[in-house]
């Protein structure tokens, strides 16, 4: 079936790109000023520990060896080496040896915390935020777009079109900040996550979704306008269908095709925007994880892992959207 081929084609390019980009970031660790071992071991490690970390990650070996070790855990460090390590440091050393990210070992932060664990805790929060924002964007966007298209030329249309332009021009984090201000002045509290998780989540999702609502609304409007002028709409009317059936079943279903195309483009932005909004509303998600691992001290593997996880999620979401697209546009399915 054409769809399976489509999906595979997508994956074929994503995997190499992931490898290239992660390698690039890996390279950056060495390009950065300072000692990579220091970055990886943390600001409190002493000289001995630094040396152990260097050996564990193979920082004295060529780059591709290091990268491979990080990626799949092979080639591993010299097993003889461990014999020479004093007893007290042995565990420290062992805990740093990477098993390979493709084998599921996401590594540890310089504070000795399992990165995988941190991600497991923080990811659902970010997902909640992004999914909520996406639902808001789709729901409101479609609604506004359809209404604007049906009431074309009226004040409703004019207002929603201008509103959409504003939505596209507002940085989501500023919108979040303004929303916080409004809540503050109206209700007297600052909606940050520790104190009001629901409120802050909803506000953050709305702020995040605003840009995408505008984008979807614009596309929906123009797509609906184009579709409603097509001949098959006339055919549907001539059959005696109610106006609602004509608009939704015949019109919208066709209009969705370019709308989903745009939706696919929006998804990568959602994760980026989520990171920023998490800072504004103090939401403990992946964004917090990433920022915490940049200040005050950069922990490169946490950063890379978060990046890779988010990218994988984005790709996954893109694939879902592509499948949705094939469902809506039967011409693709039978190619």
């Amino acid at each position, binding site marked *: 079936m054409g769809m399976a081929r489509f999906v595979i084609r997508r994956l074929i390019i994503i995997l190499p790109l992931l490898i290239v980009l992660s390698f690039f*970031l890996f390279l950056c*660790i060495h390009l950065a000023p300072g000692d990579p071992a220091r970055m990886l071991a943390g600001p409190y490690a002493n000289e001995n520990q630094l040396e152990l970390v260097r050996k564990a990650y193979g920082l004295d070996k060529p780059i591709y060896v290091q990268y491979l070790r990080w990626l799949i855990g092979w080639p591993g460090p010299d097993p003889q080496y461990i014999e020479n390590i004093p007893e007290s440091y042995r565990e420290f050393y062992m805990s740093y040896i990477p098993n390979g990210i493709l084998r599921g070992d996401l590594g540890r932060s310089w504070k000795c915390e399992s990165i995988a664990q941190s991600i497991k805790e923080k990811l659902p929060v970010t997902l909640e935020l992004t999914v909520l924002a996406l639902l808001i964007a789709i729901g409101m966007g479609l609604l506004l777009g359809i209404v604007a298209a049906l009431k074309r030329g009226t004040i409703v249309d004019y207002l929603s079109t201008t509103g959409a332009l504003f939505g596209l021009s507002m*940085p989501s984090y500023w919108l979040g900040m303004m929303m916080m*201000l409004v809540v*503050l002045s109206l209700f007297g509290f600052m909606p940050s996550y520790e104190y009001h998780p629901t409120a802050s989540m909803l506000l953050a999702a709305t702020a995040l979704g605003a840009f995408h609502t505008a984008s979807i609304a614009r596309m929906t409007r123009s797509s609906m306008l184009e579709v409603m002028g097509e001949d098959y709409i006339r055919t549907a009317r001539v059959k005696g269908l109610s106006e609602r059936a004509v608009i939704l079943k015949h019109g919208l279903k066709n209009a969705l095709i370019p709308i989903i195309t745009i939706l696919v483009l929006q998804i990568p932005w959602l994760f980026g925007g989520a*990171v*920023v909004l998490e800072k504004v509303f103090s939401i403990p998600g992946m964004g917090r994880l990433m920022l915490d691992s940049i200040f005050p001290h950069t922990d490169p593997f946490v950063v890379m892992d978060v990046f890779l996880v988010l990218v994988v999620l984005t790709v996954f979401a893109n694939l879902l959207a592509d499948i949705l697209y094939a469902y809506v546009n039967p011409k693709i399915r039978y190619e």
Partner: protein
Amino acid sequence: MFTPLIERARRMWASPAARKFRRNKLAWVGLAIVSAVVFCAIFADFIAPYDPLEIVGPKKAPPSRQFLLGTDDVGRDIFSRIIHATRLDLGLGLALVGLWTAIGVPLGLIAGYYGGKIDSVIMRLVDGLYAFPYLVFAIAMAGILGFSLSTIVIALGIIGWPQFVRVVRGKVLAVRTEVYVESARAFGEKDRNIMLRYVLPNSLAPLIVIMTLSLATSLIIISALTFLLPVGVQTQAELGSMLSASFGYMRDYWWWATSVGLVIVVIVLGFNFLGDGLRDALDPRLRY
């Protein structure tokens, strides 16, 4: 020597595209805003009443006749800082769009002109890159390499160009089949010449549109990054970092955050209006 140029300009002014643009009121607003911003950026030193880096007044003073938008947490005039910040932010945006253009246009030209295998390889790459969240990548790269404005711009620059390729390639595909290209080829002109002399100049219209609209989005992304990361927060006048600094004081002192944010909104709005107007006039099929 100038007459052909003047003639060309005159013809462009009277063309249907220009007429459509002239009728679009929002496009004029956009043009006005953009001109104002560019003016501020160039003549910041003369417009701003105070030096943006110097402490000139009490800390966190409210707006007054002396300090139009009040002072920030250290005592610098917010209004002057905003004026100067346009210079920096606009520059950053232009640099970013410049990077995207420099990478995207040649790739788009090659993909569209040669077609076939080269085209599919390039387009696969483009499709793949579309799925990457570049904000996150920029944070990652800046996190590892160190925060500086140049790191941010470069990080965004290496990932954000796919849409440029798509747009240029689309137009090149259309132009490639035009008669003047065919005849140039029949005359045995070199591919590179054909691309530069015939194909590229005629593919400019959608490129201009996407450059304008991308300037708007680049401003948003750059300010998002400077909001998140500490890039010279205490010294340089830059909109995103000013917003970041104002965030902590929002409870009692909200006009700082509000005014800086509004400025960003207005600038982005201006570019969006302008870009939309250009797109409607030149190539309505570009609605993305």
